[in-house]
């Protein structure tokens, strides 16, 4: 009950502070810009002849992957900037004192902030993703193979970053927690590239360093899951061919040969539970 009250407060805060409205307006601008660009692409001509449909689809598929990466960065940044301050601001301004003087448990506060943040971001992923893929389909007729799976992976990215930001915010100021969570997201992304380079060059140390970065912060594996779900068959085949030439290598973050294995998904889920629990323990031990 208390958890849901706090979750509702978190969601209402986003709406009331116009953050949701600002994100909505900017997302709409991106969607409209995409629609304009893709419309131009679909009707463009090369030397007087219209671009072939396979070429339009392949180009669109690439654009969709880049857009998905843009949105993964937006939701990661949003998760850090919403999750961190959601906990830390109420501590810094003393609001938490009157709240915790009620018959509530600190774990309920952390859980409520987490649910509110993750639910808001998941809703954003669903709405923005549906709008973006909707205009892609309307303008070019292209539909990526597994859009709902991609949305789930992007929500997973948001969950990992929000969990880290909230856990850190039980001890750090909100801005510091948000910056550290965003840096970890970036580190994991670079770690994924380092791992691929290491495997490609046969350098075990580089590959291991990338693997460790991906395990310490499992957002990159989830991004690759989203990318795989959005790739058409031709992209997957190309990625597999490159992977076969250099076994185990992922050529780049936008061309993924395989989805994350179940063990990696289990690791990401376990990581989330452990970091969330660590945040609760840290908050319970904190003097306010």
């Amino acid at each position, binding site marked *: 009950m208390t958890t849901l009250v706090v979750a509702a407060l978190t969601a209402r805060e986003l709406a009331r502070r116009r953050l949701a409205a600002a994100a909505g307006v900017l997302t709409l601008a991106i969607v409209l810009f995409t629609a304009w660009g893709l419309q131009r692409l679909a009707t463009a001509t090369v030397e007087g002849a219209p671009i072939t449909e396979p070429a339009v689809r392949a180009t669109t598929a690439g654009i969709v992957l880049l857009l998905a990466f843009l949105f993964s960065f937006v939701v990661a940044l949003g998760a850090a900037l919403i999750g961190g301050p959601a906990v830390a601001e109420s501590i810094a301004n*003393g609001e938490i004192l*009157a709240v*915790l003087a009620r018959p*509530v448990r600190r774990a309920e506060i952390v859980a409520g902030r987490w649910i509110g943040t993750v639910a808001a971001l998941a809703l954003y992923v669903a709405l923005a993703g549906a709008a973006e893929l909707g205009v892609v389909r309307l303008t070019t007729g292209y539909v990526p193979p597994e859009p709902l799976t991609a949305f789930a992976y992007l929500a997973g990215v948001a969950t990992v970053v929000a969990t880290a930001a909230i856990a850190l915010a039980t001890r750090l100021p909100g801005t510091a927690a948000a910056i550290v969570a965003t840096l970890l997201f970036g580190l994991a992304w670079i770690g994924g590239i380092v791992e691929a380079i290491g495997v490609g060059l046969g350098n075990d140390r580089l590959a291991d360093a990338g693997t460790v970065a991906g395990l310490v912060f499992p957002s990159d594996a989830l991004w690759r899951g989203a990318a795989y779900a959005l790739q058409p068959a031709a992209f997957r085949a190309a990625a597999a061919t490159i992977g076969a030439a250099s076994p185990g290598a992922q050529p780049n973050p936008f061309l993924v040969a395989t989805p994350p294995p179940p063990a990696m998904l289990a690791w990401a889920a376990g990581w989330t539970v452990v970091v969330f629990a660590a945040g609760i323990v840290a908050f319970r031990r904190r003097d*306010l």
Partner: protein
Amino acid sequence: MNGAALVARGLAKRYGRVEALRDLSLRVERGESFGFLGPNGAGKSTAVKILLGLVAASAGEATVLGRPIGDPAARARAGYLPELFRYPDWLTAREVMRLHARLARVRDASRAIDAALDEVGLLARAGDRVRAYSKGMQQRLGLAVALLGDPEIVFLDEPTSALDPVGRSDVRALLERLRARGTTVFLNSHLLGEVERVCDRVCVVDRGAVVAEGTVDALVGGSRGVRVRLDDGWHEFDVAPDRVPELVARLVGEGARVHAVEPRQDTLEDRFLALVRSP
């Protein structure tokens, strides 16, 4: 022990090398108005936070309304006004109250919210966003939150620090109503005159330790005679209270014109300063 509103035994708090609180033992009876006094940094707010489970004690134990501190149920019938706080400025005062009513599981929340807001004089401004409130109004809102649901014990940490003289007078009247209602009041305040007027008992802490405790009268001490204003100014006389009429009669009999008579008595402030300034 169960009859008391609050019992603390040997509470201590250490932050690294700093000893914020040392061996605090207290007993506050139900319905009592208890003043907790001390200079800045004496450990008053730390003590209140320990009693509400907001800060973990380094040593000692305590119960609030018969339940050990740290047990959320101990806070079910308690209200708290922190010394420094700011409610979310994007909420209205009524929304802040509604949030706390849900957290405290207050029955008949609408009526309770109206009653608490009315008690602090904010009912007419209940629909305004907190960002439009002055500092004094925010403090009144904090008081309303503390009083929500008619708690059995309220912890008020400097409840008048942001209030103007009218607000302070209102809070004094409010404290008197709480006392009449049988609510236990634990009052941290720098305003000694306020404490002297509304508290049954006081405890003075300094540098983390209790330096005096008792009723206000016992702390202040008895009468030390009277001051009498005659035509040529004030004169002091060491007489027992029951001999004052005879003193006045004698002065008048001797031809003096008596304009005023008042007891010579230490104020709580005199006693407080003597206690906290002693080495």
